[in-house]
């Protein structure tokens, strides 16, 4: 051994000026609503009032048992102690630190005077006793997911929530488990391992519990993971069926019951033949978003994610059954119909966003529809009995397509925005994370409006050649995102699904990455990525109240009646998710391509918020 003196190098931290956010895309580079909105018939508002059926949205009991509130997925509370008149006095009743500073995307769940929360990785579960002052901890559970699962989570280590049914709190872990906890004790009743991180599988979605089963899907569309949805026995956790979203019909569970509305979805083994040889095995189509169940029609609805890799030139064909919506039999998984929003997707437009189940006046009568604001920028109104598109209208900036052909159901691609190897195609709208990502909308039967939290962003995109290496990203694109026309990056749009146009729009500096909550007090609640939790007038969008929380909000606000009979509003703060990776990272704002190109548009977020993770519960002082 010897000694020598050293030079000090790089001792002073380098100044790290974030790059500037790119200029917005000029307004004349996107199409107008009039240019591309289409419907099979003119609006017929006199035919009735848009509302969920009573089976799908039963009478509100003041609890919040599942993230979407009910099977219609309205996220609407009939509680009305908090109103447009008194909301200005809304104040925190209690808060609770989640002890995890990553993107908190879950909805707090309230059942039997207990609140249940699951955090981002490491997926702690907390049960809080609402009957006692300050809502003390009743129990906690640490599932201890494999730490390496963090390395295969594409877009922060988020979790979109759990659900309570029949004395069980059921949730997923990042490393691919579904776990049912006894709500009384917090002890596991069953644990089922469904995912394998060594091929890039994770689970971030909120399971749906219905009809005695737990429905779960995998994530991994950026890692060449073949997408599936599985149904587990609610009592035992045992697998009842599993349907893949690529590959041969027998694995997709396509059989005699499959009756899609359009010819392009008909044919044998399209999940194989619409891909280059064997590409379907690593083709994505994951189920990381929302699943909805219609107890009247006995149908399950779920979206499918983007095809992989992002470089579409490596996978010529329609790439069935990615970027679309399946209707399935909940008991067997058998496919009933499928509609592909984005055939041969070239822009990462997953089809996994929420489906709100409504009875809607259309063409002079009432139709059973699902309303689905998609990543590709259109609000789809689809007849949920057969998968036929009734209307498709843009709610965000679009130039990657020119509307939906309602005869064939096919998206009309704009070839000028098709992606190419080695060529940077500029100003593609919407951006890869979509006109809207996973963050769920709400619907008020009192206003008839869908409150869509979304983005106003575009991007530059260059395809790059990518090889498949199991357990690593399979992307093949260099992306730089930017603000859409106007320069604001987010919007809350109150969408009239009957008139097919917005009633009002709120512009936000950052993408609106939180869910929305509508209440009977004529209020809509949502949060911003720079940490404001807001209440606006459901009829006009007028800002009535806001409160600055500790970190940006990307969670799902809920409303419940406390044991004292009063109305409460609950939301998690804690910025993160794909759009918040530059804060929850660690990600360097000097690299615009970082976080799959999101950093380019979000490099200023670290100046506005820091990572956090806190439950906030608000009430009118009483």
């Amino acid at each position, binding site marked *: 051994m010897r000694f020598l003196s*050293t030079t000090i190098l790089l001792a002073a931290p380098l100044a790290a000026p974030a790059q500037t956010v790119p200029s917005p895309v000029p307004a004349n580079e996107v199409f107008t609503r009039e240019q591309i909105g289409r419907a099979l018939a003119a609006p017929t508002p006199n035919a009735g009032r848009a509302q969920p059926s009573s089976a799908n949205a039963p009478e509100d009991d003041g609890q919040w048992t599942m993230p979407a509130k009910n099977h219609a997925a309205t996220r609407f509370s009939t509680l009305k102690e908090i109103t447009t008149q008194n909301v200005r006095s809304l104040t925190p009743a209690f808060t609770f630190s989640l002890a995890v500073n990553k993107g908190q995307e879950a909805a707090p769940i309230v059942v039997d005077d207990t609140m249940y929360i699951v955090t981002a990785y490491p997926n702690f579960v907390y049960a809080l006793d609402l009957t006692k002052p300050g809502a003390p901890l009743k129990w906690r559970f640490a599932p201890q997911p494999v730490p390496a699962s963090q390395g295969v989570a594409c877009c922060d280590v988020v979790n979109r929530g759990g659900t309570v049914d029949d004395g069980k709190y059921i949730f997923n872990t990042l490393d691919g488990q579904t776990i049912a906890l006894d709500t009384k004790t917090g002890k596991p009743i069953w644990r089922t391992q469904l995912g394998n991180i060594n091929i890039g599988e994770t689970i971030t979605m909120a399971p749906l519990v219905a009809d005695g089963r737990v429905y779960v899907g995998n994530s991994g569309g950026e890692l060449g993971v073949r997408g599936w949805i599985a149904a587990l026995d609610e009592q035992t956790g045992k697998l009842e069926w599993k349907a893949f979203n690529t590959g041969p019909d027998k694995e997709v569970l396509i059989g005699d019951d499959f009756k899609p509305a359009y010819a392009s979805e008909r044919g044998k083994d399209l999940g194989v033949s619409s891909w280059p040889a064997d590409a379907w095995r690593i083709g994505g189509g994951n189920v990381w978003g929302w699943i909805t169940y219609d107890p009247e029609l006995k149908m399950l609805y779920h979206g499918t994610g983007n095809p992989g890799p992002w470089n579409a030139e490596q996978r010529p064909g329609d790439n069935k059954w990615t970027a679309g919506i399946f209707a399935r039999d909940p008991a067997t998984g058998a496919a009933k119909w499928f509609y592909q929003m984005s055939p041969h997707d070239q822009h990462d437009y997953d089809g996994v966003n929420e489906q709100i189940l409504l009875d809607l006046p259309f063409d002079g009568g009432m139709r059973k529809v699902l309303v689905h604001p998609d990543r590709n920028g259109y609000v789809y109104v689809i007849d949920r009995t057969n998968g036929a598109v009734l209307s498709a209208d843009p709610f965000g900036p679009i130039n990657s397509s020119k509307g939906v052909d309602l005869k064939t159901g096919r998206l009309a691609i704009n070839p000028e925005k098709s992606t190419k190897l080695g060529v940077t195609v500029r100003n593609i709208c919407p951006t890869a994370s979509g006109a809207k990502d996973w963050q769920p909308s709400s619907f008020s039967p009192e206003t008839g409006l869908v409150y869509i939290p979304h983005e106003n962003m575009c991007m530059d995109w260059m395809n790059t050649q990518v090889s498949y290496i199991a357990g690593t990203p399979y992307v093949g694109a260099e992306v730089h995102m930017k603000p859409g026309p106007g320069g604001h990056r987010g919007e809350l749009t109150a969408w009239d699904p009957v008139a097919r146009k917005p009633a009002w729009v709120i512009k936000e500096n950052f993408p609106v990455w939180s869910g929305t909550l509508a209440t009977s007090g004529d209020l809509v609640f949502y949060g911003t990525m720079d940490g404001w939790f807001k209440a606006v007038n459901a009829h006009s969008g007028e800002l009535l109240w806001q409160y600055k929380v500790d970190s940006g909000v990307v969670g799902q606000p809920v409303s419940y009646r406390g044991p004292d009979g009063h109305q409460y509003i609950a939301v998690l703060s804690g910025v993160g998710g794909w759009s918040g990776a530059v804060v929850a990272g660690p990600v360097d704002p000097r*690299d615009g391509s970082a976080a799959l190109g999101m950093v380019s548009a979000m490099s200023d977020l670290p100046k506005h918020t820091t990572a956090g993770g806190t439950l906030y519960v608000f009430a009118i002082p009483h």
Partner: protein
Amino acid sequence: MYSRFHIELAIVIVAALAGCRDTHEPNLDSPARQPMQRGVIASALAPGLSHTLVTMDPRAEAYYDNAEAVVTGKRLYAQYNCSGCHSNGGGGMGPSLMDNVWIYGGRLEQIHQTLVEGRPNGMPTWGGKIPDEQLWQIAAYVRSMALPETLAAQNGPTPSQSPAPVPREADEDPGWTPPAGTTNDYTAVTQGR
């Protein structure tokens, strides 16, 4: 005062790495041999000493001041999908590599060690899967990302496109030295031991 920045250079043969074992060497894995073996040090905590220990893997030498190594490393970094997680150095699924913040050490041999072994929070293990020569080239490119010369060459929103060779002096520092000008009082206590 002169001893303040003294560093012990423990030259160790790192032959026990996964995937590149040399069967002609004595069994360095044996618990009985542990006192003799340091491996690549990835912690600033050296119990009882006044200074941080630094190891020097002799295999690293060839990759310093080597422009070809960083350019080849840049190509391999893309081919092996490193860019899928770490982007062009800014990170995403994996941490940033250009901010000079290193969880497991930022010296060339430490980065190589991380590539070989993987790390618990999501870094895959590449030892035995990628040829060792290429791992060193990737490590050299990654080491280059935070160099002032590489950062200065950034033109536009995509960094690390013109990687500077890694100067040998860059890694004489153990990587955990306080910034220049920091008053250091504790050495007085341990001097002369």
